[in-house]
């Protein structure tokens, strides 16, 4: 404790301000990625940088970290002029950065990975001792002899953070640090960050998750189209007001209005299965799953990640077929034995959580990706085996225009689109096939606020047209605003189904932890 106080005094003695940015601009051709950006960060402050994809946050931090050189403007670090030519300069000046995609090496040990990030250090005993001291101080636990390959995302990030902390930084930049973390890991990260800020170190925190920013950050700078539009105290804002300031327009509230299904008790799609053992032993076993959805209704399935959602999605869409046909009924017909393709012909479509690799092939163009699931519509496949590029492109064009997908053309690779745009495209691809039942998993994961809103409206509109939707999500706000009914999955078991009106975040939380709730 006394040690951290000493450090805090040492750091704050120099100046109250840690980083000052004045009139920074960066142009790529005619495009202004940053225009006249001014920013001030105090010692010990956790400062959020908010903005949509393409608002210029990454460009700004890349200039602060010396990866890009500004075209105009100046920076000041700890009361002296600061203009790094490369990340090495930034490091020695006391700026550290934790990247969104970790710069770690799978086959090397934790110790070797940390040594690589430190100028002139070798993975020996002396370094190991120093690392353990830092780990102790910030309560970060890692096994130095483990190989990165065997670690989860949270532990990999910890390795990166330790690597940066070993350089004794005055300013830390974190780019979307929680996008791959579980809630528990996020909490641990926040504890570490709080401790760093207590020591007088400053933190720039880039995130899409407005809730997190409200809990963690002292101030937030909002960026739009390369410019700073506002600086606010996030603790005085609601998630919604932050979101509105960020995108610069009022977010119309997404709220489910009860429709046809409330009156009729018709069931479009029902599932009643016993135990389902997934192919991979890593996935959770499902036990006694019962659910049903009426036409025009949205059922939400909540739960902490890794509680059987993957297996459930596979069972619902047909990636995992069951030997007992009548355990899943679609329009009074048994379908549990049918595969994805056969179920698709019956009007059951799905959009998996993993956009790249699962829903789309990253290296293929948008129109080629259309063929993967929509090939039986609009003559994309001639005589069942010849691809009509023209029809596929026309279909892709229609998805792009109907669902406002921002892309230069349908010839762009799937991997070149931002998360939100790709998701709009992938959901749109299914919606144009007029699904009767639509299964979607975490559709707004890592998507900016505006695209999120758009995707919610797509789902609501689909329900209004009479489709049955099952929305598997970890986003509680999303579930509460979009669905009609909610149930929770925990250890592969589904809870009782509640109507969304009677559901509260507290109740959801209890269910997610597996507590039994009697009605």
């Amino acid at each position, binding site marked *: 404790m006394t040690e951290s106080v000493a450090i805090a005094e040492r750091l704050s003695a120099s100046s109250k301000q840690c980083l000052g940015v004045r009139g920074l601009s960066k142009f790529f051709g005619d495009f202004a990625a940053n225009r006249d950006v001014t920013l001030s960060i105090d010692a010990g402050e956790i400062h959020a940088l908010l903005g949509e994809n393409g608002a210029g946050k990454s460009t700004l931090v890349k200039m602060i970290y010396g990866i890009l050189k500004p075209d105009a403007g100046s920076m000041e670090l700890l009361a002296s002029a600061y203009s790094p030519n490369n990340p090495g300069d930034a490091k020695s000046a006391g700026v550290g950065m934790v990247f969104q995609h970790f710069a770690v090496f799978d086959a*090397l040990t934790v110790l070797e990975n940390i040594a*690589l990030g430190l100028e002139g250090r070798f993975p020996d005993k002396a370094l190991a001792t120093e690392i353990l001291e830092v780990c102790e101080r910030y309560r970060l636990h890692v096994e130095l002899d483990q190989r990165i*390959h065997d670690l989860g995302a949270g532990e990999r990030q910890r390795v990166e953070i330790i690597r940066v902390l070993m350089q004794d930084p005055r300013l830390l930049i974190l780019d979307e640090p929680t996008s791959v973390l579980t809630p528990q890991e996020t909490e641990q990260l926040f504890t570490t960050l709080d401790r760093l800020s207590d020591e007088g170190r400053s933190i720039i925190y880039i995130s899409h998750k407005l809730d997190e920013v409200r809990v963690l950050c002292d101030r937030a700078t909002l960026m739009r189209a390369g410019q700073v539009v506002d600086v606010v105290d996030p603790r005085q804002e609601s998630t919604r007001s932050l979101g509105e300031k960020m995108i610069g327009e009022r977010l119309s509230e997404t709220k489910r209005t009860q429709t046809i299904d409330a009156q009729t008790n018709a069931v479009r799609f029902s599932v009643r299965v016993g135990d389902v053992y997934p192919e991979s032993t890593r996935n959770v076993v499902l036990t006694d799953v019962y659910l049903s959805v009426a036409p025009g209704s949205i059922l939400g399935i909540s739960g902490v990640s890794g509680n059987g959602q993957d297996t459930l999605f596979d069972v619902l869409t047909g990636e995992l077929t069951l030997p007992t046909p009548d355990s899943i009924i679609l329009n009074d017909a048994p379908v549990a034995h049918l595969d994805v393709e056969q179920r698709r012909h019956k009007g059951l479509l799905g959009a998996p959580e993993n956009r790249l690799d699962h829903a789309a092939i990253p290296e293929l163009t948008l129109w080629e990706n259309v063929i993967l699931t929509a090939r039986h519509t609009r003559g994309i496949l001639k005589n069942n085996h010849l691809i009509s590029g023209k029809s596929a492109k026309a279909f892709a064009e229609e998805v792009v225009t109907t669902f406002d997908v921002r892309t230069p053309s349908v010839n762009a690779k799937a991997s070149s689109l931002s998360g939100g745009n790709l998701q709009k495209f992938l959901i749109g691809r299914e919606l144009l096939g007029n699904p009767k039942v639509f299964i979607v998993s975490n559709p707004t994961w890592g998507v900016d606020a505006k695209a999120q809103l758009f995707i919610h409206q797509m789902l609501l509109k689909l329900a209004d047209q009479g489709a049955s939707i099952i929305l598997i999500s970890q986003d509680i706000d999303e579930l509460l605003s979009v669905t009609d009914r909610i149930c929770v999955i925990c250890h592969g078991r589904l809870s009782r189904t509640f109507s969304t009106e009677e559901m509260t975040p507290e109740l959801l939380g209890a269910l997610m932890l597996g507590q039994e709730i009697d009605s």
Partner: protein
Amino acid sequence: MDYGLLSSIIHSILVASTPLVFAGLGALIQERAGVLNLGIEGLMIVGALAGFATAVAGSPLLVSIFAAALAGAMLASVFALLVLKLYANPVATGLALTLFGLGLAALAGSQYVGQAAPQVAAWNLPFLSQIPVVGPALFSHDPLVYLSIFTAFVIWWFLTKSRSGLILRAVGENHTSAHALGFSVRGVRFLAIICGGALAGIGGSYLTLVQTPLFVEGMTAGRGWIALALVVFASWRPFRVIAGAYLFGSVSIIQLHGQALGVSIASQWLSMLPYIVTIGALVIIAGRNDLTQKPPGALGSIFRESK
């Protein structure tokens, strides 16, 4: 048992294996940096010719070795230019390098065919070479045999005990991350290719300087390919490259003696043995999900700086 025969068999196994040790280590250092160079065969034959030409001209052994290393390194620098700077496909470029090296050596070496290089004197290590049987088998060799083992030790030390070696492994494992940490991926790979080329060149020169003091077109006879297989067999570890090379060398020498003793196994079967062993080793490596036995993560992939 005739100890004199045993001793001379072991002696000839070491002689047969040494080119493979050099060439294997040359391939290993490149592959640990993520470079797949299928041109080892071409680098070896160019080294063989350069070493031979200087020896015939009367240069001392050291100069011949240096000339062989230089020839290998120069040809390898062409590969480096094509692959690192012009983003050529490394597999196709490596194959072209083999064909180019074989052709170049045949053309430039035609005047040397039929000539003989002076015999390289053996270094009898003091005391050790006096030990009966073991002495003449292991400690009475030309300097290059000792150099090959020393090189393996140096490479092992470099890879596991030096920071530069750690950086080289990092570059071979994940070039994107290495670049993000500020290491020069291209610089590291260039140096690895040059060193690997030099080692392959020395391996080639061993054929013309020691094994058969003659130069013949195409005399490397597939040793470059065996060296590449050896690296996989050795799961990218230097000392295992030596072990593998000696195993391969043993098979070929024992096969010769076996024929002399009238063992009736077709020599083709014995010639196949090293490859069968390699395939077996590959299957075992693939089956064991042990990361330390796996190829470097970025092996054979093209590095571009953009993004």
